[in-house]
């Protein structure tokens, strides 16, 4: 008598659990996984609007002959390879300085360095665009100091446009990553640092021998997140340089947007390019996790 009753109770318990998680899980299924599969199917079709017909791998072969797309891949990797390491190292150094117990005004410094995260992406992109404009403050300052003879068109020269994007990204995201490291450092016993100090370890030694190894999981996480974010850069490319000059600073997401919603919509081709990003994200995350594991 008691056995069947117990079973129905645990069954009820089980079903209640599913009921709790169903709305959230179904929404992710419908809003993430199904669209992803539909994008994959779409990437093998071509046409305008609803008139789509199969085209095999044409979209994928076209992608590798499309100069603007290849440029956007190069640009995105340029941002990734230069900006992400600088930002993470800088954030790590700042966090380990701010973790010092004897430091005064710690909270104030933390708030100020964290402050850029309070601005929206569009807002900071426009602030930096204004600062680096031909008649902007940076040019004014450089001319006054005699570094430049006349204003330099930072945003309409390819190399400097990319550098401005990197500077802006560093400004916006360094404090964000620093917060991760600060919270990670709180889990490390402070006595380890004090012991190292007594043993005569220098700040640099402490940093490389204690801070970096113990923060490894957090560093791995921030590296994966930053890589993921950089591969999807959009707001900055649109609002800082508008992809210019002549698409030489455009990012992949920006180009996909233009292809889908600005020019004659070509959803099939856009879907193929977006799938390329998906594969890149997956490969890079996999590689980073491999590297992260090895150093154990």
């Amino acid at each position: 008598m008691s056995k069947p009753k117990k079973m129905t109770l645990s069954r009820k318990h089980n079903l209640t659990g599913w009921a709790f998680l169903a709305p959230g899980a179904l929404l992710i299924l419908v809003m993430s996984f199904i669209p992803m599969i539909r994008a994959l199917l779409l990437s093998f079709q071509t046409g305008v609007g609803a008139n789509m017909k199969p085209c095999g791998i044409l979209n994928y072969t076209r992608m590798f002959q499309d100069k603007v797309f290849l440029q956007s891949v190069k640009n995105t990797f340029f941002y990734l390879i230069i900006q992400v390491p600088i930002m993470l190292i800088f954030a790590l150094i700042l966090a380990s300085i701010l973790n010092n117990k004897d430091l005064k005004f710690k909270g104030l410094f933390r708030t100020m360095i964290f402050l850029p995260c309070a601005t929206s992406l569009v807002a900071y992109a426009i602030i930096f665009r204004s600062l680096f404009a031909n008649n902007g403050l940076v040019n004014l300052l450089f001319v006054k100091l005699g570094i430049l003879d006349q204003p330099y068109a930072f945003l309409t020269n390819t190399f400097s446009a990319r550098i401005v994007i990197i500077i802006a990204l560093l400004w916006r995201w360094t404090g964000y990553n620093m917060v991760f490291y600060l919270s990670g450092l709180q889990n490390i016993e402070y006595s380890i640092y004090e012991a190292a100090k007594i043993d005569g370890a220098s700040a640099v030694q402490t940093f490389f021998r204690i801070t970096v190894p113990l923060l490894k999981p957090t560093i791995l996480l921030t590296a994966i997140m930053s890589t993921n974010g950089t591969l999807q850069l959009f707001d900055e490319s649109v609002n800082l340089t508008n992809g210019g000059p002549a698409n030489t600073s455009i990012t992949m997401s920006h180009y996909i947007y233009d292809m889908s919603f600005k020019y004659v919509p070509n959803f099939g081709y856009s879907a193929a390019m977006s799938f390329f990003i998906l594969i890149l994200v997956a490969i890079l995350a996999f590689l980073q996790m491999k590297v992260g594991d090895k150093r154990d």
Partner: protein
Amino acid sequence: MIKLKKFGMYLFLCIVSFISVFPLYWMVSAATNKSAEVISGRLVPGTYFMENLNNLLATQNVGRAFGNSFKYAAILTLVSLVVCSLAGYGFEIYHDRGKDLVMNIILLAMMVPFVATMIPLFQMVSKFGWLNTTIGFILPTVSTPFLIMMFRQSARSFPHDIMEAARIDGLSEIRIFFQMFMPTMRSTYAAAMTITFMNAWNSYLWPKVIMTDTTSQTMPMVVANLTEGYVTDYGMLMLAVLICTLPTAIVFFCLQNAFAEGITGAVK
């Protein structure tokens, strides 16, 4: 030597802090100055605020955009918190093999870049007639793996004895959630709220795709519109940027710790 080192450390922190704060200070100062004064390099707040405001209101319907953004972000935050906390709670409190498997699949969705789902999502939203609507805005991000994971982590610390006691008292499962879990997890909700609101307010790509009608445009979209055209009125532009930054800045200053916990939340 030690003193010199200490001095160097403080100097470094001061420089970094200055660089972090200066662009925002410049934004505030420019918003109160005439465009010509901004260009000539004036760095102190001026008296041109009202004129900039009038110019801005004459150019773009900032009030409507602000209201739209606020409405979208508030509804998204509210629904998202309920849906994700229910799911996180369900995954943890009733966990078994099947649910753990589903949770792992959901975590995979974290790696899916938004552009990879954007076009099918756009097709779906337009098919159902949800372009220019709040529901269209909230659907793709109302349930996120990040928030579900965060609530799942916090449910781990929800004491089992209390639940058992409540069950014996005859409280239904859903009432345990609303009357006991929600009030005890206030700090998790605060963290989740700040991060969700900030992300919703700042989102740009998705609204740009689905808000095709000017009357449903969001604040970031309107600010971005202002940069089109050949001559830029910096005073007016920076005022718009300032207005766009204000809500997130307020959230940041009032709930800084909750925000810091929100971005790192699911990690612990």
